[in-house]
């Protein structure tokens, strides 16, 4: 039971990383990207393949996973970010599906639907961080969350963050102020993707196996819910959102009611959260971080 609570916190951490990335893209730039699951998958598979097939150490695979996910963020971002918001949503959704399709079919590299098993555990200075030792893994994951929080908060407060917000508020005005909007958007995408790659890498060494069926559209929707529920444009809020969503999703197992509550219930609830939040509290539970500027009044 208590172990289960720790498990929820571990998953909260892994998803919080993705939510932080999504927040940069959706909360700051205002772009609806639906592809965190794809980058998550890329990160997971990068670690799985490098450590199982090539015998690399986890700590070497981690930056590579972030780099590959970031590179894909660049590749998918460059063409699609010229598109208007709604097209972007579909194109990125399509990308997520393509990734899963390829993982399912590229047998020689990914072992198809069977996935890759027996991923070596993480060790740090000779200590093995086993997923069975929940406290150790929890600490590991949350160190990453903390670092990511500091780093992304830094980005958001920098020149880049201000440029991103300007793009969100009015892209044409931003362009006329000399902001290279495409460049900044692509960078936001790369950073948003890279952190999802890190999350994927951690997930791989937590579960010790990867299969394509994990990385469905559902993952992207959960991450989106976390950002919307917590509050777009507020990194602390999206981490809170990550906790709430994970708590909801494990609620039936936690309370031993999984026989009573059907598995679809949480998904329906995620849908309801999106609709209800948009109508009654579009700024999320905590709201956007204020920095003493006027809120946009009219449409």
């Amino acid at each position: 039971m208590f172990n289960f609570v720790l498990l929820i916190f571990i998953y909260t951490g892994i998803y919080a990383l993705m939510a932080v990335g999504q927040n940069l893209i959706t909360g700051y730039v205002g772009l609806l990207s639906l592809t965190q699951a794809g980058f998550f998958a890329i990160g997971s598979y990068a670690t799985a393949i490098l450590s199982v097939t090539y015998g690399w150490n986890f700590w070497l695979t981690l930056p590579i996973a972030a780099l590959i996910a970031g590179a894909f963020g660049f590749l998918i971002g460059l063409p699609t970010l010229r598109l208007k918001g709604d097209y972007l949503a579909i194109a990125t959704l399509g990308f997520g599906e393509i990734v899963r399709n390829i993982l399912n079919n590229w047998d020689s590299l990914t072992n198809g639907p069977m996935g890759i098993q027996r991923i070596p555990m993480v060790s740090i200075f000779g200590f093995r961080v086993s997923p069975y030792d929940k406290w150790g893994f929890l600490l590991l994951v949350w160190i990453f969350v903390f670092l990511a929080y500091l780093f992304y908060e830094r980005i958001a407060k920098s020149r880049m963050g201000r440029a991103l917000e300007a793009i969100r508020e009015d892209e044409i005005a931003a362009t006329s102020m000399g902001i290279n909007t495409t460049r900044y958007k692509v960078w936001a995408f790369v950073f948003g993707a890279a952190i999802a790659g890190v999350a994927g890498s951690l997930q791989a060494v937590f579960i010790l196996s990867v299969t394509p069926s994990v990385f469905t559209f559902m993952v992207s929707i959960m991450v989106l819910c976390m950002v919307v529920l917590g509050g777009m444009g507020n990194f602390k809020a999206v981490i809170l959102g990550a906790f709430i969503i994970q708590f909801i999703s494990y609620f039936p197992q936690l309370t031993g009611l999984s026989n009573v509550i059907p598995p679809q219930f949480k998904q329906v609830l995620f849908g309801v959260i999106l609709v209800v939040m948009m109508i009654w509290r579009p700024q999320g539970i905590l709201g956007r971080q204020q920095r003493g500027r006027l809120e946009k009044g009219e449409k």
Partner: protein
Amino acid sequence: MGSIAEFFQHFMNGLTLGGIYALIALGYTMVYGILKFINFAHGDILMVGSYIGLFIFDAIRGESIGPFTLLAFFLAMLGGMAFSAALGVIIERIAYKPLRNATRLAPLLSAIGVSFILSNSAAWMWGTKSRKLAYPFDNTPIVFKGVSITPHQILILIVVVIMMISLKLFIDRSRIGKAMRATSLDRDTAKLMGIESDKIIAITFAIGSALAATAGFLLALEIKVYPSMGTMTGLKAFVAAVVGGIGNISGAMLGGILLGLLETFGVAILGIPYGLKDTIAFVALIIILLVKPEGLLGKAEKEKV
């Protein structure tokens, strides 16, 4: 291999599939034309429509296949259409209308929420097991010079053509169609001219959803009915709408048929592995958005300050 007969075989298969995509794409394009918004839940409305159609058909068709079976088939289709139309209008009322003046992101997120609610409620209520629609008549393929066509394909093509022609006539000739075009051109001015834009938007959702239900019911002849059937089909139909030029009625028809043909020929002739069939649509989307973002028949739109 590669004979003329084989070519026509794939052509017929692609055309049937494309016709179904086209019907769905029409719903996306009509809503987009008026509200400039992608109704993410469109595919799930299709799924609900095919379930309802299937339930009605099972209830009224009787045991043996007779002339009444075909009538029952069409009645069931109409039932599914009516239900979906009502569902579409209700969804618009509850989840989209309050957000009409919100940021662009808000209705999109709300629509994703609705889509999730619909597909998972369906799985909850009706189970995840896929159901098969009983055949309304004998489906022995008719072979003509090496090309085999199933009676179902013929039925699908006939229904699709009838739907398309009546929609085109409705939009081009009727008073409501005219109001729809006016609203899509400029909602505020149309309002000033006395067009009740809320009503027009509701009608648009009703028609689009009914067409989706038709497509879903026809699709049930070829594949099975299951709670997530709308997701991938809906996405592909959306791609079809974009390829044809979103907001453009003829474009949606053209785009749907092109996509159906592309998928069939992509697997059969270009040798794309069957497992990657679903990727064809998205690659097509990315290419068209890069080369001609306004679509084949769409007009380029300049963003104004």
